[in-house]
């Protein structure tokens, strides 16, 4: 694709770079501010006027560890990994089928998938809560994994389908003429070409699960507490533990930050155009 320098508009690159950098600084300032609060002593935090310089402290970190927040981190990680793996295993063949084959009622099926993604989570949490209470899935790993499927499986099929459609069909046809079985074609032709798309989409699913709050809050009890759910718990009867909240918030943020930097091109596509294309 053509580089931006070919564009008719815009030769004053540095001016616009400055504008963009300034905008980014303003947008990202709250994140920076929260990061400083991880090591800010309480009296400096509440000082008026706003205090820029202070002696760093690790007290917020030690409180967070004392309360066992590393277990929430572990729970989050396990839950997101398992539900994402499951989404990849059952979603990949479906995405491929939707991209490649004619099926009766394909539009309706696809609309069903679309509808699953569009449903507000609040609408789902009510029936989930009652059904889970009946079958003993409240506060269990399995229950939350299932609930996370609602938004992630449909999203995964949706986005991966667009990656599948970009694969050249000729390779598969050639392999079919060679007499390869469908499984061989998938394993040796489709899968290698699709690997990047699968990784990018799966990472997005992992992040959505990682960020999920409502299901984890309502369907997980004492045994299944994820990192986002632990944040409101720091609003205690003795007051809000702001520094500790900042620690947990940044902990929830850092993996996402890392992933976005490493996979940025794929992520932009997955989140925007991949989703748009349907």
């Amino acid at each position, binding site marked *: *694709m053509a580089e931006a320098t070919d564009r008719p508009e815009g030769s004053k690159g540095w001016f616009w770079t400055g*504008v963009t950098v300034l905008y980014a600084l303003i947008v990202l300032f709250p994140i920076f501010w929260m990061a400083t609060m991880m090591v800010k002593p309480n009296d400096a935090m509440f000082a008026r006027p706003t205090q820029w310089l202070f002696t760093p402290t690790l007290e917020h970190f030690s409180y967070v560890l004392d309360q066992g927040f590393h277990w929430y981190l572990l729970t989050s990680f396990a839950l997101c990994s398992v539900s994402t793996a499951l989404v990849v295993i059952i979603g990949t063949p479906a995405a491929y089928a939707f991209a490649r084959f004619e099926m009766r009622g394909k539009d309706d099926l696809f609309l069903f998938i679309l*509808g699953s993604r569009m449903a507000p989570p609040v609408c789902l949490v009510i029936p989930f809560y*009652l059904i889970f209470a009946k079958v003993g899935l409240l506060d269990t790993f399995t229950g939350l994994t299932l609930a996370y499927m609602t938004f992630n499986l449909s999203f995964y099929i949706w986005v991966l389908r667009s990656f599948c459609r970009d694969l050249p069909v000729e390779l598969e046809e050639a392999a079919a003429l060679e007499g390869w079985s469908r499984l061989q074609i998938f394993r040796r032709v489709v899968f290698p070409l699709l690997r990047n798309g699968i990784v990018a989409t799966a990472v997005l699913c992992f992040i959505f699960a990682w960020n999920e709050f409502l299901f984890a809050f309502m369907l997980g009890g004492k045994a299944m507490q994820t990192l986002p759910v632990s944040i409101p718990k720091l609003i205690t009867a003795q007051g809000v533990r702001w520094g500790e909240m900042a620690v947990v918030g940044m902990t*929830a943020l850092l993996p996402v930050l890392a992933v976005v930097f490493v996979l940025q091109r794929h992520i932009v596509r997955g989140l*925007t155009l991949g989703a*748009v294309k349907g």
Partner: protein
Amino acid sequence: MDMPIMASAGDTITATQAPAPLPRERSWYPYLLIAPSMLMLVVVSLVPFLYTIYLSFHAAKFGRVTDFIGVDNYAVLLTDPRFWNSIGIAATFVFIAVPIEFMLGLIGALVLNQNVRGRSILIPLLFMPAMMAPIVVGLLWKIMLAGSWGFLSYNVLERFDILPGTSVFASPDYALYALIFVDIWQWTPFMMLAFFAGLQALPLGPYRAAAVDGAGPLQMFAHITLPMMTPLLAVIGLLRFIDAFKVFDTIYILTGGGPGITTETPSILANKMTFEFWNIGEASALAVLVWIAFFAFCSVFYQIAKKRLNAF
């Protein structure tokens, strides 16, 4: 495979070059491929939906489902001013926040398209707000706008003598606008990058031709950029409308629907009905209405996007 992914993604939006399906495959094979996913979606999506419909026709309080009461739950809900209040709140939220995000995003995309250097660093940075957990976004703004000591409360709101000493989220007059502000903060960069990806995918030919004809930047924007971007703008805008209507986490942690019911959207109301008042029948009726509205919206959107905009 390794060309700029954002550019390659945009191409298929405007062109209808989806590869032809393999003709020989009208067999059981594709159904086998989708079966596990469909089964799972029936369990996690269709079953809960049908159960919600069932509940909405029953008296269901405190987790106990008792009598079939027909449409009573709907009747109560539709005559409840609190329900209509929540619709109004959500409409205000969505119809202020999304158009602003849209305009700012489009302007931002045009700026980003102007030979901006260091995009490989700027783009992931600008993507941060959209990728953050909504609950963390809420926390972030709770900190920035905390009463009296919050960075923005003290340095901006008090300086201009708006709401000294209290948090803006506790003000019945301003809380909703503060939430709108947070939504704009979170989603404008996302819109900007989505539109930028679209701009990068536009073909150069028409611009060259227009330049030969002596067209100015404004004319190029109105007659080339805008028409070619329409499908993308429409689809991203509509998706944002849907998502903005669903917002729950940030409102939950920032205001919880208050003060009073001034920021109570249908999502917040449904959650309160279920887990605070334990009036599950009425909450289910609300969920069904919202669900039907969303599904109708989706199918219309899907049809338009597919037929008119070639977006699917």
